[in-house]
Every structure is written in structure tokens, then in C-alpha cells.
């Protein structure tokens, strides 16, 4: 069977080629993941202190009102959606999209090429496509996004803003999550602190209203870094699985190849022996 040995040999070669690619992708994802995780840790103190600050202000001042604390559920919502730029990352993008609750007529602000593609044919308004590459979003971009969202929210374009991203728990676990940005509400589980008399430069309202865009930007940046880390981790796991499958396939095919070669040799010998006996 020289024909079939050749076919098997070709298949082994092609699987080996694929394995090389998946191996390289795994290594790339691993090295990028380390940086992404560091990034994620660095953002944490920033938005945590902002959140605490905004909550403190809300709790200790009963006589203030801000347009950022009032929501309107009749109006369309605005969703900031953060996913990947590329596929081949296991269920990373699909899992996030499955968790979304976007209604017709809502606004979206996509971050990541896959989000833009996913919503291209849907009945939603895209607020801006300027931040289509998730890997390139920096903190200054988040600042601009936050200002844009805060302005449109104040102008009454939408009654709610939330952000959907993939939460990075550890290298094996990441889950899609949605957090409400506006209207701003303090976390209920938080322990109450005694009120202190504080001087607010320019008044409570002014301080709070300028804090909110900063807070939104912090949350979005945090969500982006967490999503990027999840994407890389997810890609690494997918590629690891692909490598394992390729190894198994190669072992299987090699066995088949050896068998078919052996049977070809045996046949030849039989033929020679048969010929010489005559």
C-alpha cells in the first residue's frame, strides 16, 4: 500500500505544521499574559479609591443631587462592550456575547474588533467606533470615552450606562460580567462609616460631578485590562488544548504509518519469495 503510506505521511506533516503555529501562539499569549496581569493589578488601587470616594460623598451628604444618580428606564440604554480583536481564543468572545442583554434601539460603544463585527447587522446605534482595537486602549482613551458617556448621559440621550466585559478570576477561570456605571449607586454590602465634616472645594455637587467621569474611566480601564488578560488566558488554554490534540493525532497517525509501511514490506517479501520459488 505505498499510496496510503504517502497520504498518511502528508497528514502527519500538515498536523505538525498546525502544531507549530498553535505552539507559537501559546507562547506569545503566555508572555503577553504576564504583562496584562501586571497591568490589571496596577489599575486596581485607582478605581477602588475613586469608587470609595464617590460612595463616601453620596452617603455623607443627603442634601445633594446629581444628574448622574438619576436613571431613566424608559429611555434606551448605552452598553460599553469589551471583547477581543481576534478569534482563536476558545469561547472568549462567544461567551461574552451570549451574556449580553442588548435591546433594539439601544446604544453601544464597542471596544474590540469582534464586537463591531457582531453588531454590524443588529438594530443598535454605535456611539463611536474610534476604540475598535481593545489591545490598544490606553488610560487616556478611557478618559475620553468617560467624558463622552458622561456628557451624553447628562444631555439625556440614554437613561442607563453599563459595561460588559470578561472578569479575570484566575488563569483558568474568567466569566462574562456586566456592571452598571450610571446611574451611580453605592454598593449595598459596604459597611457604613461615621460621617465626617469635610470641606468640598467648589461645593459637593461640583466635586461629585467631576469625580464621576474619572470614576467611569477608571472602571472602563479596569474592565479593559481584565478583558485583555482573560482573552490571552483563554487563548493560551485553547492553544494548549490544540497542542495536546495535535500530539495525539501525530502519535495515532505515526502508528498507522508504521503499520502500513510494515505491511507493504511484508507483502513485497512475500511476492519476492513467491517469485523465487517458481
Amino acid at each position, binding site marked *: 500500500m505505498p499510496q496510503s503510506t504517502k497520504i498518511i505521511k502528508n497528514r502527519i506533516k500538515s498536523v505538525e505544521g498546525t502544531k507549530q503555529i498553535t505552539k507559537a501562539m501559546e507562547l506569545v499569549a503566555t508572555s503577553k499574559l504576564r504583562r496584562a496581569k501586571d497591568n490589571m493589578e*496596577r489599575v486596581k488601587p485607582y478605581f477602588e479609591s475613586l469608587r470609595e470616594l464617590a460612595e463616601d460623598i453620596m452617603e455623607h451628604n443627603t442634601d445633594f443631587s446629581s444628574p448622574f444618580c438619576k436613571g431613566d428606564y424608559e429611555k434606551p440604554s448605552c452598553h460599553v462592550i469589551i471583547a477581543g480583536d481576534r478569534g482563536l481564543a476558545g469561547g472568549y468572545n462567544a461567551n461574552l456575547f451570549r451574556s449580553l442583554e442588548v435591546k433594539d434601539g439601544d446604544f453601544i460603544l464597542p471596544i474590540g474588533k469582534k464586537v463591531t463585527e457582531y453588531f454590524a447587522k443588529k438594530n443598535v446605534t454605535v456611539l463611536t467606533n474610534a476604540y475598535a482595537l481593545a489591545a490598544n486602549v490606553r488610560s487616556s482613551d478611557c478618559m475620553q470615552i468617560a467624558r463622552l458617556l458622561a456628557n451624553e448621559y447628562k444631555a439625556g440621550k440614554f437613561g442607563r450606562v453599563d459595561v460588559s466585559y470578561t472578569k479575570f478570576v484566575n488563569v483558568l477561570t474568567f466569566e462574562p460580567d456586566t456592571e452598571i456605571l450610571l446611574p451611580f449607586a453605592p454598593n449595598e454590602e459596604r459597611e457604613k462609616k461615621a460621617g*465626617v465634616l469635610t470641606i468640598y472645594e467648589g461645593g459637593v455637587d461640583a*466635586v461629585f460631578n467631576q469625580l464621576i467621569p474619572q470614576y467611569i*474611566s477608571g472602571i472602563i480601564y479596569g474592565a479593559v485590562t481584565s478583558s485583555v488578560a482573560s482573552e490571552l488566558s483563554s487563548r493560551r488554554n485553547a492553544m494548549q488544548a490544540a497542542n495536546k490534540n495535535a500530539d495525539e493525532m501525530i502519535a495515532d497517525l505515526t502508528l498507522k504509518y508504521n503499520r502500513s509501511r510494515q505491511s507493504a514490506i511484508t507483502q513485497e517479501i512475500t511476492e519476492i519469495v513467491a517469485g523465487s520459488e517458481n
Partner: protein
Amino acid sequence: MSEYRLKIVTPDRMVFDSFAERLVARTQAGDVCILARHTEYIAPLAIGEIKVKADGKWRTASCSGGTLVVTGGETTIVADTFEWSDEIDLERAKRAKEKAEERLKNNATEFEFRLAELKLKRAINRINTGSKF
């Protein structure tokens, strides 16, 4: 002189987490100086210079907005950007300044105009702080 805990955080890193004697920051209502045992205080920051005296030495930095919080004897600056004067990339700031000026000339929409204006302010602030060093 007595010291107090000062923390400076930006989205990208924890810039400073140590003890300081004195801090001069530009809030939207003007410059303020924070010494130890300051009362509880919150102020929005403007684009401007921030000076910190720690270990007997003054350091200058450029800040492009954020919030200054004094609470429980601790001071925290949550800044959009914060760069010590020796970290400022002057070339980049100059390029940003030119770009912003260009944009201001080609009358864009109001939103873009305001954006360019802010960019210009930030660039000028960086150049000022950076060239003093």
C-alpha cells in the same frame, strides 16, 4: 517638620506611597498647600503643577486633572495623569502642542474644539514643568 501619608495614584501605576511634609497642588479654585493634620478636604484638581516635599526635598510634577482627598490624616491624589518633571517626554509634549494648535485653527465641531483646547493646555503644562527641571 511633621509628616503625613501621601498616596498618588494614576490609572497606570501607584506613583507615590510614602510620607510627605508638604504638598502644593493646583485645584480648580486655585493653589492649595496641604500640611500635616489638615482637616478633611476634597477638591477637584486643575491642569497644573504639583509640588511635593518629602525627605526634605522638593519635587515637581505635572498633573492633568484629578481629585485631591484628605481623609483621616491621609492625603490621596487620584490623578488622570501624573509625571514627575524628570519623567516628562518634552519632545512628545511639543509635538502634542503643535498638533493641538493645528486642530484649533481648523475650526472643528465644538466638542472637538474643546478637546483640542484641553490637549493644548496639558501639553503646555508639561512643557512648563518639564523645562524647569
